[in-house]
Every structure is written in structure tokens, then in C-alpha cells.
């Protein structure tokens, strides 16, 4: 009797907690986005859609994710391959590789600000090499593409580690015999990577890509630290409407958009990288 009730008792706190603080708030977001003063209204969505910053914010957010995530995937795969091949110094190098995992996006933004600001290290280096006569204002509003580049670098720098860690633990699950068999049949290193590692990594690739893409849609503090409001992104606009413009309904409409593209991305990766039935390790 006890064994029947006990698991439910143990799950009860977590379930209640997630219902109250996870499921309910997201329902509330959806409701807020389509109501105004208690009545059903499409006005919040209309205000958002017709505001000039909406399209640019959506565009920059999507472009950022489209640039950052593939580069991170390539880097994370290389780093994970390196780590699995290492014999000496594996732990030290693994620790160094995974340091950015613990850093916040705000910290990453400030770190790259030290490099890109006008009296920063990039300008100092260019000046030292004689490339420039005087420091360039990299992060000014007229250089929006430089801001974009700085955000891309900061995001790659900070958030590749999480993908690497997921892929390393995924690679650990691939049986050694598969590689030995591949070697016996004459596959070279690259062929083994493409024909054995990548297909076997599907579940890890899936979770790494979902996690990273969603986080890329939520980019906020890096952009604020490096570009202020020059480079509008969805999360920053959400914050703006909630705080500066004091309109929770429009803020929720923005949140709904982020939610929609997140779910779309999740479904996309679930479909593209689905693991065929009966093909698990």
C-alpha cells in the first residue's frame, strides 16, 4: 500500500510547483496577450505588430540565432571530438573548455565590452600595430553591424560550452566497437565521424540544438551590454514594454512571439533529428 502512494507523495511538491509557477504563468501570458482591461481584444498584438521596432527586433533575433547556432554547433563538435581524443591533460582542458558554462550573458557582454569599447583592447591592439591613427567608436549606432558582430562573438564565446558538454557526454555513449568495425572496413577518421559519430549522436544533437536555439531567441543582456538599445531584440523589447512603457499586455504579446518561435524551433529539431524507432543504442 505504502509503495503505491509513496511515489505520488514524492512527486507531489514538484508537480504542484510546476503547475503553479510554470504551466499557469504561460497560460496567463497567452491570456494577457489577447485581452485588454479584462475583455478579449487583439489590440496588444496589433500594437506590437504595428510598432516600428517589432519587425527589426524579430529580424535581428532570428538572424542572430541563424548565425550563432550553426557556428556553435561546428565548434562544439570539434571541441567534443578533441576532448574525447585527449589522453593527457583531459581534465584540465575539459575544465578550461567548460568555464563559460558558468558565466551569465551579462558577464559575457561586459567581457566583450572590454574588448570592443572605444578605449578597449581591440582599439589598443590596432593602434599598437599602426592600423588606426585614433580609436574607432566600434559600438556606436552608425556601426550596427559591428555591434551585431560583437554580440555574435560574445554569444559564441559564452554558450558553446553547454553544447560541447552535452555532445561529449553523448559521444561517451557510442560503443567503441562501432569505431573498431569502421576501422576494419577501412573508414578513415572523417568517414567514421560522419557515418558513425554523427548518426549516433542524434539524441544529443537534438537536445543541444533545442537548448541553444531557444537560448539564442532569449538573448537580452549581451545585447544590452554591448549595444544598449541600438540593436533591438525581442527580449529587450519585452523588457521595454513591461518597464519603460508600462504595458503588460503588449509585453505579453512579445512573450507570446518568443514562445511561438521557440516551440516552432523545438518541433523542427524534434522532426529533423528524430531517432528512428528501434535504432537506439
Amino acid at each position: 500500500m505504502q509503495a503505491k502512494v509513496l511515489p505520488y507523495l514524492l512527486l507531489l511538491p514538484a508537480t504542484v510547483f510546476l503547475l503553479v509557477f510554470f504551466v499557469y504563468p504561460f497560460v496567463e501570458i497567452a491570456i494577457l496577450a489577447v485581452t485588454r482591461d479584462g475583455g478579449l481584444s487583439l489590440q496588444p498584438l496589433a500594437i506590437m505588430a504595428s510598432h516600428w521596432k517589432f519587425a527589426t527586433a524579430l529580424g535581428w533575433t532570428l538572424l542572430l540565432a541563424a548565425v550563432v547556432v550553426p557556428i556553435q554547433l561546428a565548434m562544439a563538435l570539434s571541441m567534443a571530438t578533441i576532448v574525447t581524443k585527449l589522453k593527457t591533460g583531459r581534465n584540465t582542458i575539459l575544465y578550461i573548455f567548460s568555464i563559460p558554462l558558468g558565466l551569465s550573458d551579462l558577464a559575457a557582454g561586459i567581457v566583450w565590452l572590454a574588448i570592443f569599447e572605444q578605449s578597449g583592447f581591440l582599439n589598443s591592439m590596432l593602434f599598437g600595430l599602426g592600423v588606426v591613427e585614433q580609436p574607432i567608436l566600434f559600438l556606436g549606432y552608425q556601426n550596427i553591424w559591428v555591434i551585431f558582430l560583437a554580440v555574435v562573438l560574445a554569444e559564441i564565446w559564452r554558450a558553446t560550452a553547454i553544447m560541447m558538454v552535452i555532445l561529449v557526454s553523448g559521444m561517451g555513449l557510442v560503443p567503441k566497437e562501432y569505431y573498431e568495425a569502421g576501422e576494419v572496413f577501412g573508414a578513415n577518421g572523417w568517414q567514421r565521424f560522419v557515418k558513425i559519430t554523427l548518426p549516433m549522436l542524434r539524441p544529443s544533437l537534438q537536445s543541444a540544438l533545442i537548448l541553444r536555439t531557444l537560448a539564442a531567441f532569449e538573448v537580452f543582456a549581451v545585447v544590452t551590454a554591448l549595444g544598449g538599445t541600438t540593436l533591438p531584440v525581442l527580449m529587450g523589447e519585452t523588457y521595454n514594454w513591461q518597464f519603460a512603457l508600462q504595458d503588460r499586455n503588449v509585453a505579453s504579446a512579445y512573450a507570446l512571439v518568443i514562445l511561438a518561435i521557440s516551440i516552432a524551433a523545438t518541433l523542427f529539431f524534434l522532426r529533423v533529428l528524430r531517432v528512428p524507432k528501434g535504432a537506439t543504442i
Partner: protein
Amino acid sequence: MSAAASTDVPAPVKSAHSAGRFLFWACVFLICAWVLVPIYLLMVNALSSPEQVSGFPKSGLPGFDFSSLQFFASFSGVGRALWNSVLVAVLTMVLSIGIGAPAGYALSRFEFPGKEVFRMLVVMTRAFPLPLLALPLAVMFIRTGLDDTALGLALVHTVLAIPFAVLITFSLFSAIPLEMEEAAWTLGCNRWQGFRKVVLPLVLPGIAASAVFAFTISWNEVFAAAVLTIENRTLPAFLIQNLNVSPLHLKFAGGAALVVPALVFIFAVRKYLFAMWGIANR
């Protein structure tokens, strides 16, 4: 197997092999530099005087001047923000382990109807942009008096940390054979005693690691913290709020204050990172 192969390969292949090794270590070195150099540069700025920070050109060496850090530490609101950050992070740690660990234990030890539903609920949290929770919760907190409190923010951070807490503790408990618990029961322990005397000592280091991980999640979170707190700001919320009005040396000292604890945390849990994410794959 590669060691065995390298003993009987002819010389030209060997030199190609060593060229490959050189390239391999060059890559390792480059990636390490890519990770470490930006942190070093931030530290250089944090350890220089305000004049050196806004000076140009920079030498790339720290001035070993603590006036920036002193300025940061004595800046109004910083001490309180630091204290709030620690408070919220500790609350998050306690809540997420306290709520998550029992669930992890239940998932690893019992088969019961509804198990998959709960797993889905946990996995689903990862398909949602969780910091956005702060928007509707802001209203709920005003109604319940939780607005602008450490506990209110910790509740949101706990939503971020709970999926990890559940999955990590699930893998920790799964690694301990049920037979060990059963042996304790046959020796006269009841379920709770068996858990406390046999299982708990074995999983404690792992639990501590996942607690540190929860602490780090909360320590780093910016958006929800900025939305939900006004007077009781955490350090990231305080910094982002003051970014456009603060001088450079304040930003860099603040950045260093965020980074250094994070470095320590990651070092503390480095052994468990892969166990954590290994399970997150399934």
C-alpha cells in the same frame, strides 16, 4: 589501439602522424586561448585604476590598482545587491533540491502510472523561454505580497533549476543499486532509515554539485531578476539597470564580481558536469 598502431608504422607515416599531433595541440591551445584571453582582459580592467580603464592605448597588463574595485564595493546599492544575489541563490538552491530530489528518487525507484506524464512535464520546461515567466508572475506576486522579495524571485529561479535538479538526482539515485537498499531493509531498517543510512551518504556529493549548479543558475539570471525586483535588486539586475549610466570601471568591476564566483562554482562541480548532461540527453 592507436598506440599499438604507431609502433609498427613506417617512418613517413610517422612524420605525418606527428604533424597531425602538432595540429591537434595547436587547436587545443587556440581554443583554450579563445576561452581564457577575454576573461583575462576583463580582469586586467577590473584590477586597474579608473584612469587606466578609460585610458588609451592599453598595455594589456593589469595596473594592480584596487581603486576600481573599491569604488565598486562602496558604490551605493552594490553591497545590498550582492547580498540579495546570495540570498536568492541560496533560496533557489534549497527549494530546487528540496522539491526536485524527492521527484528524482521517485522516478528512479518506482514504476507507477503517470510517470511518463511527469517526465513530459519536466522535459517540456526546456521547450519554453522560462525567464518570460516573470511577466505574469509579477502580478501574482503583487497580489500575494511576494513582489520585490528574495523569495518571489527565488521561486522563478527554482522553475529554471528544477528540471536539472530532477534529472540529476534521478541519475544519481539510479546509479545506486536497489539491492543495497533492500539489504538495509532486511537488516531491520525501514524505508526512511535505509535511505538515510545507505543511499544518502553515497549521493550527497552529487546532490551538493547539483545544488551548486542551481546556485549558479540563479546567480547568473538577469531578465526575471530585472523584471521582478525594484528595491531588492540582485547583482545582475542592478548592473543591467545601471549599465547606461555607470562609468566603464564600474561595469568592469561588476563584471568581475559576476565572473569570479562563477569560475569557482564551475571548478567545484566540474566532475559532475558530464553526469548531469549525460542524463539530460535522454
